[in-house]
């Protein structure tokens, strides 16, 4: 018989909702399934996916809470009479953030209803390439059939299950943002931008926070040998941006246990957690007690309950993510996948949204436009933010050869830090360009306040193929941090001191 829906989207997150709403706009019959499996700790949430509930949104709001704490400290220098030390109450922040997230859940619900998209709060699994069945929380079975199906179920944080006690006693970011009480003395582990961001705001609101890292921070971000401020050339490949960001965090009180990995987590009678770890450098075993242990060891695609094997949707054997082509098509006709669940794509909200919209346009509007994953700007919201767009230095070297690229860089000091007597030695900007002909800009990396806001505009420039000479003709806005980009002229190659002096 005929399928009930033109489009069925499995997963009501950034990508899924965008795709569904776009298709509905074209007058199509669309359904969305969304279901949140409670975390091992029992945390659950509403419609909207990872970004809204346990990702970008609560993270940025808590990052802002921490920044406000710093601002309160700076305020004295600017004349404000604020009695120090200033205290933070977790439950007040958590409630405000959680209420806002719930209003977003509701907003999405209203939008779906308004756009006539049918919503099912069920966990779906494939029966055949056009049929998905699911059970409601009450145990009622629903069968949904559709001409086209888009899988957008995203991912969930992994647990290091080989570490004794990790699952029983640790939490993940899924739980952190929904805690009603303060996490207290916390150990985020290991290193992913998630644990740095969380450690950053936890420290910023006054909590004793220690990050345990097995190896290098911010894997996948810019890592290159760098010339430190003291003109020491580091021969081994180091995380340049990553180390600047973590140095800053260290100077503001986050503790780092480098080259350490936990071996077990035990619960004490006091209800605190005792963590035992191996220190690879000293070859010793150490322990300490924490109130909360948070795992940030990567995310796993949420495919377990989909029954992908039933319909033959191919996944990457290593990552478990769904393999898609440039049009987001899976190995099965009429089944597509977008967002965090897909292999080789950035795990970002804006790319999932754009991919979802373009997919709907290709399916129902005869468009042929594919999603462009090139030069996607991103930002890590650590206390000192790191924003970037385009190629890292290593990627540029790999693609073009070190003789064919020029790296410009500068250490600068935000004006606002001066009166506040704040250190700025990690505020840094680096631009990677081609050396020949028009000197096209390949990548831009910025560490400083509001890095996301700074990088956004330059992302347009890179998309348009901006060149170094064009940048030099672009007048800076004064006084800002962003203008430092327009003033870049010291090259790494020259070996000169890249510190900017005041105007």
């Amino acid at each position, binding site marked *: 018989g005929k399928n009930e829906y033109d489009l069925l989207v499995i997963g009501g997150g950034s990508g899924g909702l965008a795709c569904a709403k776009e298709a509905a706009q074209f007058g199509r019959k669309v359904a969305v399934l969304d279901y949140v499996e409670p975390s091992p700790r029992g945390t659950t949430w509403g419609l909207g996916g990872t970004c809204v509930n346990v990702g970008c949104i609560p993270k940025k709001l808590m990052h802002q809470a921490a920044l406000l704490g710093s601002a309160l400290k700076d305020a004295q220098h600017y004349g404000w009479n604020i009695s120090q030390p200033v205290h933070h109450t977790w439950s007040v922040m958590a409630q405000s953030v959680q*209420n*806002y997230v*719930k*209003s977003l859940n*509701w907003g999405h*619900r*209203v939008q779906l*209803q*308004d756009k006539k998209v049918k919503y099912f709060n069920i966990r779906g699994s494939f029966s055949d390439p056009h049929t998905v069945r699911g059970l409601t929380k009450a145990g009622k079975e629903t069968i949904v059939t559709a001409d086209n199906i888009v899988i957008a179920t995203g991912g969930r944080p992994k647990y290091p299950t080989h570490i004794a006690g990790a699952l029983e006693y640790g939490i993940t970011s899924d739980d952190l943002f929904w805690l009603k009480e303060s996490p207290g003395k916390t150990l985020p582990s290991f290193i992913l931008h998630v644990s740095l961001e969380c450690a950053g705001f936890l420290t910023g609101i006054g909590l004793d926070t220690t990050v345990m890292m097995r190896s290098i921070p911010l894997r996948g971000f810019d890592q290159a040998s760098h010339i430190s401020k003291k003109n020491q050339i580091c021969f081994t490949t180091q995380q340049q941006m990553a180390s600047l960001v973590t140095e800053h965090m260290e100077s503001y009180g986050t503790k780092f246990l480098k080259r350490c990995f936990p071996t077990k987590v035990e619960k004490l009678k006091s209800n605190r957690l005792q963590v035992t770890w191996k220190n690879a450098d000293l070859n010793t075993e150490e322990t300490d007690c924490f109130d909360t242990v948070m795992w940030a060891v990567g995310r796993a695609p949420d495919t377990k309950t989909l029954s992908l094997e039933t319909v033959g949707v191919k996944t990457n054997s290593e990552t478990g993510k769904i393999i898609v082509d440039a049009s987001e098509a899976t190995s099965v006709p009429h089944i597509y996948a977008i967002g965090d669940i897909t292999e080789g794509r950035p795990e970002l909200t804006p790319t999932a949204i754009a991919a979802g919209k373009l997919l709907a346009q290709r399916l129902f509007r005869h468009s042929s436009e594919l999603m462009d994953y090139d030069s996607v700007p991103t930002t890590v919201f650590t206390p000192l933010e790191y924003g970037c767009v385009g190629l890292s230095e290593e990627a540029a070297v790999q693609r073009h050869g070190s003789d064919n690229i020029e790296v410009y860089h500068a250490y600068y000091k935000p004006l606002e830090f001066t009166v506040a007597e704040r250190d700025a030695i990690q505020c840094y900007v680096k631009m990677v360009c081609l050396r020949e002909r028009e000197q096209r800009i390949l990548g831009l990396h910025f560490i400083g306040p509001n890095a996301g806001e700074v990088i956004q505009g330059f992302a347009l420039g890179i998309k348009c193929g901006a060149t170094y000479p064009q940048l030099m003709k672009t007048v800076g806005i004064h006084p800002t941090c962003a203008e430092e980009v327009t003033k870049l002229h010291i090259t790494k190659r020259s070996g000169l001191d890249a510190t900017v002096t005041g105007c």
Partner: protein
Amino acid sequence: MGWEETQVRGYPEFVRTAQSYHGRPIFALFCGDKDAEGKSWCPDCVTAEPVVRKELHNLPDESVFIYCLVGDRAYWKDPNNEFRRNLKLTGVPTLLKYGTPQKLVEEECFKAELVRMLFTED
């Protein structure tokens, strides 16, 4: 026990009434005052009220429906009135589930499916 309705006027009476029903699901419809003929100065409220009333039978058991007249047009237009300041209302009519971020504002209240969704979904 099914649902029950109570009618109030003005902010202090609304707060007192809501507090007295603490523990039960509370839904509230805020409308502009009605004149002697029973017509509100707020035309959207006139449209929304019958739509909302038609869906009241969907209210969960034990819940309370508070029909609240906010005041005259001048009071409402004041950007500092207590409903705007304390309940964060941005317009009338507003239909909301008290104590949650779930609400429908103005033309959203005209849509029976949205009203039903507010009354029946978690």
